[in-house]
Structures are given as C-alpha cells and as structure tokens.
C-alpha cells in the first residue's frame, strides 16, 4: 500500500481529504444553483419561501417538487453511479479506456431499450397496461444485467475470472448487440426511430419520484459499499498475482466490482438513457488531481460525477428553453474538449 501512496511518488498533490471536501461543497453549490434555475424563471428567493412552506401557487409547487427536485436527485444519482462504475472498471481492468460499457452494460441496455421501443407495441394489452411507461427502463436494465452476467459466465473458468477474456468477449457481445439493434432499427417506423435516437442521447426529463425510488436501491448500496473494494483495486494495480500475494481475495474483488457496476450503471442507463463520457472522464480527472488511490477516488467520483451531471443538466435545460437538449450531447460537448485540454497540457504520458 505504501508504494501506491501519493507521497511515495514524491509529487506535490493536494491533501485528498481537502479535495473531497471541496468536491462536496462544489456539488452542493451546483445543486442549489440547479434548483434555482429553469425555464419557468422561479428564482432562489421564491424557492426559499417554498421550502419554508408558504406563499407558492400550485404551478410553482409542481415546478419545485415534481420537476426540479426529482431531476436534481436523479442527476446526482445517475452521475455518481456512472462515475463510480467507471472508476471500478478502470481499476479492475487496469485500463484507462474502461467504462461501464466494457462489461456489456451499454450494449445490452441499448438493445433492451430498442427492443422495448420497437416491439413494445406487440406486448399483450394486460402486460402493456401493467408496465406502462416503465417498459423502456425495465427492458434497458434487464438488457444490461443479462449482458453482464453472460460476459461474466463466459470469462469465468474454474472459479477464476479472466479480465482479458471478459474484455474480448465484451467486444464480441457489443458487436452482436449492435447488429441486433440494427435489425430492429431497420424494422422501426419514423416515430420509433426518433424515440430511440433520443434515448441514445440520454435525458433526465423522465425524472419522477417513483422512478428514483426504483433505482435508488440499486445505486445507493454500490455508492456506499464501493470504498470497501478500494484496497483490493489498489493491490490489483500491481497485477493479479501480486495482489493475491498481498492477501487480497482477488476473485471476490472482481465479482463484487462487476456485479456492482451491472447494478449501478445498469440502473443509471435504464432511467437516464445513454449518457456518455461521465464514466470515463471523472476517474481520470480525479487521478490527475489527487493520484491513483482508490480509497479517495471512489467517494470523490460519486461527488464529481453527480455534480457534473447536475451542471450539465442545468445547461441542457436552459440553453434552448423552452425546449431542452438531450443531456448526453452536453456532457460530450463540454467534457471532451476539457479532457483533451488536460491531456495536452500535461507534459509526458498519463501516469495511470
């Protein structure tokens, strides 16, 4: 462990606890800002009086309690889930390109969502009435979950999971899911095509309290428990054999990381669609900022991911008001150039 600590590298890095505190404050600030921003022009002062429970008409109450608060909560949850999943995957695969998509969550969830959008009309009326508007999230979650379990089974031989096999099988499965999605896209009519294009660009517009209630049990445990894997992931950075010699239960770390990602990222993608870039960039930013120690990266990723997504949603909601942009466009448009700038500014290679 000592070999991995920032001090041993002899680099001047900020105190990780201070970074965490600053991120928490920044996220809180963004959250309050987001709550006071919107097309309806309901400012912070009106909202303050609303929280004390007085002087708001029905419309303002709906805007606060049924639109902005659920969106804020969902943005924090989804952003945190994606960023923590990305950190777990990059740690597990020891690969800076890893993100939740690498264990099939993206491709599987995409296939599930497209299946629901294109073939949802064929469901028996009783079933359709029962699942209603939740059909697409449900199918996306199941798709992501099935793809991950399948990959996990393929890559596991005699109780040992090979991350290399998982990576390659993930590419094959992604291609297969892409082809099946292509067939469905070919069958789709105009309206369905637009629906699935919008799904692929992600949105928090579907935020509602029941939906948050459904995804919280999947996301929150992963956020809270992921730091328990930090020691194992730190050791894995040295290689599997070394980690095993250090007394790490390597297979257990792998299993928990993969299942955790399937649950958190699967739920996030299901409720918010395809939001790229958060999972891959947030862990990198944190590594550049405070070093590669997962004990700090995992909780910080939850804060930074949540904050980033809330900020992006604020932009998505206000830029073309009264309409709104798909949030995936905002995260990629803002995230990619910033990320490139950081890469170019750094002399030498990436210290991963």
């Amino acid at each position, binding site marked *: 462990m000592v070999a991995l600590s920032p001090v041993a590298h002899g680099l001047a890095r900020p105190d990780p606890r201070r970074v965490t505190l600053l991120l928490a404050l920044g996220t809180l600030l963004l959250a309050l800002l987001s709550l006071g921003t*919107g*097309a*309806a*022009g309901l400012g912070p002062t009106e909202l303050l009086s609303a929280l004390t429970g007085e002087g708001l008409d*029905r*419309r303002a109450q*709906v*805007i606060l309690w*049924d*639109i*902005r608060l659920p969106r804020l909560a969902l943005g924090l949850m989804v952003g945190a889930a994606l960023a923590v999943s990305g950190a777990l995957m990059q740690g597990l695969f020891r690969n800076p390109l890893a993100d939740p998509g690498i264990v099939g969550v993206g491709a599987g969830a995409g296939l599930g969502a497209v299946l629901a959008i294109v073939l949802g009309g064929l469901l028996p009326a009783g079933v359709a009435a029962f699942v*209603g*508007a939740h059909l697409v999230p449900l199918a996306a979650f199941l798709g992501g979950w099935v793809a991950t379990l399948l990959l996990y089974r393929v890559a596991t031989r005699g109780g040992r999971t090979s991350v290399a096999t998982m990576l390659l099988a993930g590419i094959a499965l992604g291609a297969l899911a892409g082809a099946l999605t292509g067939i469905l896209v*070919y069958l789709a*009519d*105009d*309206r369905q095509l*637009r*629906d699935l294009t*919008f799904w692929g660009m992600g*949105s928090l*517009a*579907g*935020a*509602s309290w029941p*939906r948050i209630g459904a995804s919280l049990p999947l996301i929150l445990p992963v956020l809270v428990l992921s730091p328990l894997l930090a020691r194992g992931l730190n050791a894995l950075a040295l290689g599997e054999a070394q980690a095993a010699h250090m007394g790490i239960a390597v297979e257990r770390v792998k299993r928990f990381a993969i299942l955790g990602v399937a649950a958190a990222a699967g739920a996030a993608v299901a409720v918010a669609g395809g939001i790229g870039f958060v999972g891959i960039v947030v862990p990198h930013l944190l590594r550049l900022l405070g070093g590669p120690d997962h004990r700090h990266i995992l909780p910080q990723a939850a804060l930074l991911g949540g904050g980033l997504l809330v900020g992006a949603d604020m932009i998505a*909601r206000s830029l*073309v*008001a*009264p*309409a*709104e942009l*798909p949030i995936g466009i905002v995260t990629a448009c803002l995230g990619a150039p910033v990320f490139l700038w950081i890469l170019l500014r750094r002399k030498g290679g990436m210290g991963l």
Partner: protein
Amino acid sequence: MKALTLSALLLASPALAGGERVITLGGSVTEIAVALGAQDRLVARDTTSNFPPEIEALPDVGYIRALSAEGVLSLDPDLIVAEGDAGPQQAVDVLKAAGAPFVLVPEDPTPQGIADKITAVAAALDMPEAGAALAAQVQDGLAAAEARAAAVTDRKRVLFILSLQGGRIMAGGEGTEAEGIIRLAGGENAATGFQGYKQIADEAVLTAAPDLILMMAREGDLSIADADILAHPALAETPAARNGALVRMEGMLLLGFGPRTPEAARALYDALYGQAGG
C-alpha cells in the same frame, strides 16, 4: 366608443372559455387550431408544428416525444392540446398535475379520423361551430376525393420517395400515409411487398414501373434537382422518368392527414389524370 367596447367583448368572449394562452403540440393539431381561427390564442408550439409558416415565429417547446415539463409551464399556458403520442409520460403527468387542462387528441389517419380530430380540437378550444363547419368541409372534400378515385378505371402507379440520399431510394411501402394519399388520389402504390418507409433495391424500382414519382418539397440545399432524380440509373428507366412525371408537395400537406388532405388529394389527382376529371 361604447360600440367599440361591445364588439371587442363579443370578439373576446368565445375565446375565454377554451383558454387564452394555448399551446398546441403536434403538427396536425396546430394546423387544425389555426384553420379554426385560433391562431391568436396560441403562445407556443412543438418542433413538428410548421404550418402555416407564421406559426414558426412562436416559441418552440421541443420535439413532441421529448417534452420538457418546465419549458412548457414557463409559457404559462391555460390550455394544452396535444396529439395522442405526446411524451415522455412523466412530463405529461407533471403537466396534468400543474393545473392547466391537458387535452389529448386521438390519432387515426382515416377520413373519419380527421373529422374526429377536428371535432376534438374544436371542443378543447371551445369553438364547436367552427369545428363542425371545418369537419363537414373536410369530410365533403374527402368524400369528393374518394368518389373521384373510385371513378378511375385505369389506375396509374405512383412511387413515393421519402429520400434519395446518396442515390439510395427510400420508398413508402404498404400501410404508410403516402399509400393513403396515393389511394385517395385514385392512384396505386407502386412500392408493395413491405411495410413502412424502407430503402428499396434498384431492380425493385424497375419492377415497380411507376407512372409518377411523388416526393416531399424541401427547401434549401437538401433538395435535389429534378434532372438529377430523373437521371438516377434505376429511376431513369421508369415510365415516370421518361414522361418527366415528378410531383413534389410540402410534407405536412401530403402526409399530415389534416384539414388540407382533400387539397393534397386533389392536387395529386390532377397531376395523375389531368384537370379533366373534375
């Protein structure tokens, strides 16, 4: 002075009951609302509402299937009239909870469906007389179109091309709005054997042998010159290209199945069989 106030009151009173600040969602609903004379009461529209062109000056609340609840509420509507497929469901639920009446208009691309839609929009806007008049006018127009179509003995074949991007022909197959309007104009859809709008092979175009090619009129650089279309390797060999029979019509007019559908059927009929028919 007194007379002026009185007439202003008379003008204003029918509008009050059905909402003073109306948002229409969906191209056909907006078109019907304008045709009923409610244009002055509209405060916003969605992306699919683009006829009449003046309507595009209104704020755009986004694509009808990806609405932003707060964006719609920010315009302070006291009535929202939407096509049946408005969404997402959560946004619609929030809009309903916010207090302004939210009216969903049923979707059905048949002559009776158009009349029902007009009646429903008129009821929401509290303009029943104007609605009944418009519905009757449209139904008469459609009945006339159907009668004209039934009288045709030698049906001409029409190929609807949705797009010709990169030389690939995206045609309107069975069960499409394009087929509906072709039938109503007394023609026969040349693209058969598949559902919806699909890319078709060059050989299939030759087999289809259309007498007329129907396309949507587009503005700006997206449009392809007629000469380029008729020079397309497969299309060039069709009877339509040999006769230069190419018709373009504005998309909402052609495929919208709204108040202007009789007009579209009439125009297409004239293009197919000449003015003599009616």
